[in-house]
């Protein structure tokens, strides 16, 4: 059984939220290429959400388009999640490798991507007072995605339910720490750069006179 080609696995998981990841783990059918494709899609959908959402539902400031916030809120955030979870997993006897965490987490995002695309399309056809449909799709996709992420972490590390909850909470903390360290690093390098620049200009003054 389970003779599904690799590209059909994400959809199989989305439709089987509770045993899908165990099957994936058992079959070792996860593909890094497909995972990267899904992450790229989240980014593309993020861009589309800003630019293609119908006017009635579009609240973004469309005068200026900046890709960096979308990049950070999709790809960077996802990578932080993967490495944060891997770090937590090593503490909490998790069995997941970085590669597996990456694949499983990415596969969990499929319903969110599909729902976002449907919402973008619907937003171009629905009126102001028909927002209910969009809200329903949004909430269903959110519940499904959260369930999937939970089960992905549970399956990839072979955790019990309480341990999964603890791991997810600690991963969120780890993400904050990672982001903090990145910001710290950037500011430090900036100061080093300013220091070097000051010395350069100072020397420039000395030798010119």
């Amino acid at each position, binding site marked *: 059984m389970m003779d599904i080609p690799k590209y059909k696995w994400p959809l199989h998981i989305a439709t089987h939220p509770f045993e899908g990841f165990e099957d994936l783990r058992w079959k070792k059918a996860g593909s890094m290429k497909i995972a990267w494709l899904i992450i790229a899609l989240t980014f593309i959908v993020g861009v589309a959400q800003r630019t293609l959402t119908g*006017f*009635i539902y579009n609240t973004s*400031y469309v*005068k200026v388009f900046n890709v960096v916030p979308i990049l950070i809120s999709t790809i960077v955030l996802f990578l932080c999640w993967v490495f944060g979870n891997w770090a937590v997993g090593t503490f909490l006897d998790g069995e997941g490798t970085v590669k597996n965490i990456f694949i499983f987490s990415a596969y969990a995002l499929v319903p969110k991507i599909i729902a976002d695309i449907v919402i973008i399309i619907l937003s171009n*056809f629905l*009126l*102001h*007072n028909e927002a209910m449909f969009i809200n329903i799709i949004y909430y269903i996709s959110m519940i499904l995605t959260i369930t999937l992420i939970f089960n992905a972490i549970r399956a990839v590390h072979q955790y019990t339910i309480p341990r999964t909850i603890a791991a997810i909470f600690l991963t969120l903390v780890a993400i904050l720490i990672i982001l903090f360290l990145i910001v710290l690093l950037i500011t430090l390098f900036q100061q080093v750069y300013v220091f070097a620049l000051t010395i350069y200009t100072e020397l420039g003054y000395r030798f010119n006179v």
Partner: protein
Amino acid sequence: MITVPIIKRAISLFCVAVIFAGIVMQTALAYEPYDGYNYDWWGDPVPSQNGYVPEFQVRGDQIAGAGSFSEPNDLFLSSKNEFYVVDTKNNRIVVLDKDLNFLRDYRTFINKDGSETTLNEPKGIYVDENGNMYIADTLNERVIGCDSTGNIFITFMKPTNEVYPQANAFNPVKVLVDKSENVFILAQGVTMGAVMYTFDRESDTTDFKGFYGTNRVQATAAVIANKFWSMILTREQMMARTRAVPAEFENFDIDSDGFIYTVTRSQTQTTGILKKLNPAGYNIFDKAGYDDYYFGDWGELWYNGKTYKSEIIDVDVADNGLINIIDYETKRVFQYSEECDLLFVFGGAGNQLGLFTYPVAVESLDQRVYVLDMRKNNITVFKRTTFGEYVHTAVDLFQKGRYDEAIEPWEEVLRRDGNYWFAYIGIGNALMNKGEFKEAMEYFKFNHRRGYSRAFKEYRAQVLKDNFELIIGGIVVIWIGSLVLVKYRKKKKLARNADRSGGNKS
């Protein structure tokens, strides 16, 4: 070889003409010391044409017979089109006609017993249809009502009722009287709203009716923190902390329908800066927190190292429903339509004609707006431009629901200022009336979400109706096609399985 010098000469002539035109145009531009602007869909200020330009300014001593003003605090336009200037530091009321010529002034008033009395730094005045004056005699702690000859027929003192905080002084600064002779008084430091009085002329009695149209305390972080502490601390400890009180009304005006417009001078309060109160004291300019009305400049402005946030200190409602308010912080006048749509911004800080140092009162009559400056001791008169005239005509027709007639002035407005957002809404509504929904959508986009939604609803219905056969046909084709496809695949699968099992057997 001859052609070259001709071209050269032509070029030089052209250059001279351009420079000359530049000089002429520059002097024409220098006429207005400020640039008009408006706000777009995203709340960004965009340059706009000026709706009002300064015509002239006049000081008290430039008016024959009036004498110079000294910190005048209020300007009132009566229903007989006479201007009443409250000349605070000179303790008098000056009456001017509508061309700002001196008519008369009041320095002394006659009490009922025949004795004379004078004012002590009056700050506000209201004149009713019969010419009766109600003067907020601030430092004498009273409001007097007198007829046009100066005979006092009623005096309002500090209410003796416990509802009025007896520890507070009673320094009335502004006064209003509605058609049924209810008197509304704004007193300094009274945060409960306007003091409301009724009176009886025959028996010479006044009756304190309570407060009218109180502001609410805005739930800022400090207020919520106080609420939290009040659960823990004792009553004595709470008394020692600063209390959150609502901001007091700074000024008010009444329109011809009896609605009272109040303004609150506050940088922290964001809602209810300008209120339109019905007789029950309920604010009509209220969207209950959703998509609130905004008055003055949006948010905080940062300019030349100083932050600005609007502080509205006076309101004037014209007979045609237009609302003018003064922002003390930027010294600008903002003009709104009846429905609170920002039409024009004019004025500014400075000493030139058309700029102010301390504008305190605004009034409007026909095509002119009059602003009283307390520090410059003068009145500046603004006159409507052609652009302003087109906008006003269009807005007037628009608010009467005559969208089709409004389309012509709106188009003229757009020819003069392509950024004027209200014109797009006006034309959009006219196109809706004509049934041109797709075009209406284009006009509403980035200007009016609800209008766009309405136009889109009609357009969607139209498209569905026009292509009904196509859509139904498409659905049927897809349905049958998918059925056939499923059947075909099933068959193929069966055949494959049969092949495989057949192969196994052999």
